[in-house]
């Protein structure tokens, strides 16, 4: 209870689901050996943290930001550039963190103070504009960022796949640097999510919700809403940058496609909506569903597309082509807003409370 900040899942099915996901993630290196499974699991961890931080903004303050991948990218690039230029040493990781986090926070502060003053709608548009400028900037400053190619780098010795800590003969399972990195990612992501849970259940989190419900009333009650919203924006940016750092460490690479693209922004939005806004837990559910679908459904789409083409159906092969994955994503997006506005968590909680 303490660790969940007094905000349990409040639904039996949801609790079971969360426990299963967390156990599966924790046991992935043992249960599903092989690079693909661990990749998917690591992605789920990273995105769960990233989406949870976005939920702080979208679900708890009601402000739509399109700059969240920018902070994610800042984290990724900070680690990548530091390790690329300083070599695979721990000091480089520390440098990346020491540069990346304050940079993300400062930028979030600037955007917040600038655009949260007026109307929520401004914030959405301004973040979109800033994020797109940042994206162009990152691809143009190729001496720093490696441009479209991004930056690949080596990890410190301890985290390399070749580093065997405990050999297979000893425990029937090889504990190597890769597995260690995975657990680093898992634990860091879990810590960030628990921190967010603490934030939203603090008095500060309640003020945020009051602002979301009625900004004028919150202001009339004496809360400086701009300050609170900006503060939330900074916290979200910090966690997003942290998730970006994990992403870079895991991939040993940072580039426009893996850390800055607008597609990631849409993915995040979708994960929040599917999981359930304003719940934090929804982030874990949303990320798990989405990443699993992304990794395993696309193959299915490819097969379906081929089958449709073989059957000589018009149009369908094109629509089912794995590259058209985003089309179905967009449809899912609209459908979920229409039919599923409270997401999985909202649904489960609703069903749970209806029984009482």
């Amino acid at each position, binding site marked *: 209870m303490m660790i969940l900040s007094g905000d349990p899942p409040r639904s039996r099915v949801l609790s079971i689901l969360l426990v299963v996901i967390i156990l599966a993630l924790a046991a992935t290196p043992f249960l599903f050996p092989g690079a693909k499974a661990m990749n998917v699991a690591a992605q789920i961890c990273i995105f769960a943290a990233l989406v949870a931080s976005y939920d702080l903004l*979208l679900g708890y303050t009601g402000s*739509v930001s399109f700059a969240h991948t920018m902070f994610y990218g800042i984290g990724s690039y900070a680690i990548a550039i530091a390790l690329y230029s300083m070599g695979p040493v721990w000091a480089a990781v520390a440098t990346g963190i020491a540069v990346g986090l304050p940079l993300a926070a400062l930028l979030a502060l600037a955007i917040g103070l600038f655009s949260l003053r007026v*109307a929520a709608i401004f914030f959405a548009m301004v973040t979109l504009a800033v994020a797109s400028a940042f994206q162009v900037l990152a691809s143009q400053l190729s001496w720093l960022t490696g441009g479209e190619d991004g930056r690949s780098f080596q990890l410190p010795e301890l985290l390399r796949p070749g580093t065997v800590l405990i050999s297979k003969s000893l425990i029937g399972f090889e504990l190597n640097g890769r597995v260690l990195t995975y657990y680093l990612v898992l634990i860091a992501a879990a810590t960030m999510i628990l921190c967010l849970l603490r934030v939203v259940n603090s008095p500060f989190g309640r003020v945020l919700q009051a602002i979301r419900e009625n900004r004028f009333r919150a202001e009339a009650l004496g809360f400086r809403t701009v300050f609170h919203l900006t503060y939330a924006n900074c916290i979200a940016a910090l966690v997003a940058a942290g998730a970006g750092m994990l992403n870079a460490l895991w991939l040993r690479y940072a580039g426009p496609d893996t850390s800055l693209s607008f597609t990631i922004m849409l993915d995040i939005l979708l994960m929040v909506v599917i999981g359930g806004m304003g719940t934090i837990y929804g982030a874990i559910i949303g990320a798990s569903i989405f990443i699993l679908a992304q990794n395993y459904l696309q193959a299915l789409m490819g097969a379906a597309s081929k089958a449709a083409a073989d059957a000589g159906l018009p149009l369908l092969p094109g629509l089912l082509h794995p590259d*058209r994955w985003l089309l179905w994503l967009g*449809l899912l997006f609209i459908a979920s807003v229409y039919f599923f*506005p409270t997401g999985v968590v909202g649904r489960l909680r609703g069903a749970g409370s209806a029984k009482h």
Partner: protein
Amino acid sequence: MTDLAASDPLPKPKRDVAPVLLPVALALVMIPFVGSTSSWVTLTIASLAMGMMIFIMASGLTLVFGLMDVLNFGHGAFIAVGAYIATLILLPLAGSLQADSLWLNLAVLAPAALLAMAASGVLGLVVERVLVLPVYGQHLKQILMTTGGLIVAEQMLYALWGPQIIPLPLPASLRGSVIIGDIAIAKYRLLAMLVGLVVYVAIELTLNRTKIGLLIRAGVENREMVEALGYRIRRLFLGVFMTGSALAGLGGVMWALYREQVHASMGGDLTVLIFIVIIIGGLGSISGCFIGALLVAMVANYGGFLVPKLALVSNILLMVAILMWRPRGLYAVTSR
């Protein structure tokens, strides 16, 4: 009857001209920086042409927001769809376009543009009914719905036309430049300026001289009172939405010809620019949108010429500067 407050001095209607002077001042200030007069004229004409095209695309969005508080993140879809639909006429009739006769060229261009506007307008109807109507008054859901709509539209274009860039050469008679002295003015830019001006004047006349226009302006200020006077504002809104979509389609065709290519991502790419324009202009204001579009285009052209590196962030800097000066944009709409 008593003549109430007859002695009250009536404040003179204030004409807020500072924003109008801004682009003029900017252009004049640039003369010494650019150096040669011919480059300056070329850049200025380029800015005006680009600005007019952006204005055409952005005008609908700002009115839609002003009138109904609806923010359409999918506005870019109308731009891309317009451009693609136009290729249905422009590509098969490429022969006539390459004939060196202005009238023959225009005889192909005009129906293409009209078809594009019709298609975008119809798409606007569908989007308004399916994506916007169910979430009136809910900003968050509007953003989610329309963003989803943009993705779907973009992906449909990919699925139907394929992911490749479609080249769209300019008609023969619009290629090249008119030479006056040592100044070269691209012909297409002249056309773009002309069309842009016509659209701007038409919108201003509609807003100021017709009852529909009065209703739109009144509705932007206070839609409840417009309803209390007995007008069905939702029907009006649908009309504005469709017109705005059709104009975005027209802008899409013009932009595609300007760039001489069509691609599904053009809508999404231009959305950012359009947002900056309507934020600068003051959400809901047509004159503001017009000036904002010109400013953005000027900054892009002069900036690109003088400090190419800066061009990447110049729009953001412009937006920051304008909002520092007027936090609600150049012409803030009264009620917001």
